């Protein structure tokens, strides 16, 4: 009802498309192994870098693998890692941010400086370092991504908590004998989550992009795993021969990220 009427009109038109895109991606990521698709690894040496055909809907790559099948499977590794990493960053971010605001004093100062420090770190370079030291272990990568992307969440959680702590219902809780932990669990967190949710969803898309970038650079998913970033990297030399090889994974990644961001924007 409030705001620019044109904006709401646009969002009304766009919303079905956004929802459809997200449902499509979730559906595909969950069910790809169950769908009657060609194997992602089977190499057809007789047909390399083929264009779309009835047999291979989106053609084949340089090793003769079915691009359509690899494309539908290609979101699974990044999505899995992004979901785990986002859970880690949301949990730690909210806890650190809220505790920081609740504790106040030197602990708040220390944690705030730590968050500032983390925000200043060059994420991708650090990820490259971690990945080259510890190898392409998905567990370590999720953990690293999760910790690296917690700072913005912690910051939002901290400022939201500070606002909440000044509100009367929190004061009343204190007057009724609630300790810091009870206030954190009962009064702060349920209200923080609502605000932080947007930030968490945005971080999810950044993590998704970061992992795909790592794969593109050869330090995320390892061949022959089908993964969008990796697929782009493997095919970029053949881009002029068969552009679908590069365009298709880019479209998949971009549509997913844009749809999620559009959804949060209009919440």
């Amino acid at each position, binding site marked *: *009802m409030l705001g620019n009427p044109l904006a709401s009109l646009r969002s009304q038109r766009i919303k079905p498309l956004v929802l459809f895109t997200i449902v499509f991606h979730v559906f595909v990521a969950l069910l790809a192994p169950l769908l009657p698709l060609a194997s992602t690894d089977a190499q057809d040496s007789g047909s390399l870098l083929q264009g779309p055909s009835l047999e291979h809907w989106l053609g084949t790559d340089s090793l003769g693998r079915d691009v359509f099948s690899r494309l539908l499977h290609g979101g699974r590794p990044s999505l899995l890692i992004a979901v785990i990493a986002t859970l880690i960053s949301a949990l730690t971010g909210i806890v650190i941010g809220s505790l920081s605001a609740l504790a106040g004093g030197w602990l708040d100062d220390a944690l705030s400086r730590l968050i500032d420090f983390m925000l200043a770190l060059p994420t991708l370079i650090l990820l490259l370092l971690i990945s080259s030291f510890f190898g392409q272990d998905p567990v370590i990568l999720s953990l690293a991504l999760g910790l690296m992307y917690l700072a913005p969440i912690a910051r939002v959680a901290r400022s939201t908590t500070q606002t909440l702590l000044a509100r009367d219902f929190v004061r009343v809780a204190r007057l009724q004998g609630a300790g810091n932990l009870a206030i954190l669990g009962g009064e702060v967190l349920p209200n923080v989550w609502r605000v932080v949710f947007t930030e968490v969803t945005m971080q999810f898309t950044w993590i998704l992009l970061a992992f795909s970038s790592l794969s593109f650079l050869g330090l995320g998913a390892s061949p022959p795993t089908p993964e969008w970033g990796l697929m782009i990297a493997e095919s970029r030399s053949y881009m002029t021969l068969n552009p679908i090889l590069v365009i298709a994974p880019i479209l998949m990644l971009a549509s997913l990220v844009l749809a999620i961001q559009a959804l949060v924007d209009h919440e």
Partner: protein
Amino acid sequence: MGVDATSEIVELRGVEVVVRGVREGARPILQSVDFRVAQGESVGVVGGSGSGKSTLLRLIAGVVSQGLYLQGGSVSVFGKSILESSAQEREEMYGKSLALVAQSLGESMTPHLTVLSHFRDTVGSGVANEEVLRSLAEAGLAGEKYLQRYPHQLSGGERQRVLLALALIRSPRLLLLDEPTSALDVSIADEVLKTIKDLQTRHRFALVCVSHDLGVVSQIADRLVVMAHGQIVESGKTAQVLQRPGNGYTQRLVESIPKLDRRVRQAQNNRVETVLESRELTIFRGESTRAIDSLSFEIRKGEVVGIIGESGSGKSSLLSAICGLVPIESGDLRFRRDQDLATTLKRRSPDLLSSIQMVFQNPDDSLNPKCSVARSLGRYTNASREEMVSVLSSVGLDERFLSRQPSQMSGGEKQRVALARALLASPDLLLLDEITSALDVTVQAAVMKTLSNLQRDLGVAMILVSHDIALIASFVDKILVLRNGQLVEQGTSAEIVESPRHEYTRKLVSIARQKSVA
């Protein structure tokens, strides 16, 4: 009353305003409203929240609030249909023939512009300083010093006067005021209203003043229009409406206004046992400002004490210190003679904590928006369902409210729940910080009635803080008058009302008397 009674400058006929996109049959915001203002007439529009009074005022200014639309009827100002006039025609009209002073004092001025710059922006850069000075002086701000001041260097009353001067400098024929005094302290509001009345008599512009406060509009209006649920329920000469209200709602409205000499609770002054004792109490606000300066008083068991004071008088700081939210700088504050309240919240025993409960001013802020009433009531008190139902019924709510969320309740209902939550702790001392100031007058009267019954049944001592001396005087046993952190006067309700000694108290009492006579 007008210069020429036949020349209507505002005429609304059969106006229907509804919320856009709401299904048929929903209640309109304005419903068959006929409203006229003659030249030089001053009309007061009064009504509770949701009565449609602000929508009406905006409509006269040619604005339909976002999300609403005019379904029927016509709005004509100076004989033209203002809603259909072009942007250029409106530009012509605003300022020169029609001026609006909006409610929010803080947002109506640009922080980085001086008073003079505001005038230059409004009237044009060619405006002579003399003209601005004359306009300011008429609004009660004499002296060149005001020209170069920034908004933050002005008090609330001064800001309202600058806005008045800005609105009147081009001698408009119609002035629209939205809650002109809601952000001001009582004594300052009174002075501003006198200035408005004075300017209106002198310049004979037509005036439409919208307020929730019958006392405010009756001070400056020749004619009163009472609105409820989007309809005009009564209209007539101010004195007539006040003395012989013809409509049931108006009657309730008039009756709900607290009167200095009509008690809603019997005073009792025969208690002996002391509950709270303060000796030379000093509380700081920030590093060095004294919010409360060597204050001494005593509250007995079951006694109801009213604290009256304006913003900055330290009344909220005092309540916060009693319940432990704010530390005490020096002096002695004792509960039941043996418990020292100079301790922080964390060091207070659970028993002491539950003995002192507070209800805050803003009903929207006092309940966790994520919790149902049952959860809000039971979380820290561990009350059983039966206890909750019984305490809810004591504040006038029934069992069904247990499952309600804060968003499903009105301000009055939320404040009742907040009161119920405080009562569940079985306090010996209940601190009430302006608990009715955000509520409509009729709702306020109902809450005060509930409070009176509770006090009679439970015998709990209360400190009631308010800026409204009539509200306090009609309810409490003893009154403390605070000004700038100091106690300027204390006495029983009757003493303060009948023979106020301090000059400031006398002023408050006389303003309250004027209002109830008006």
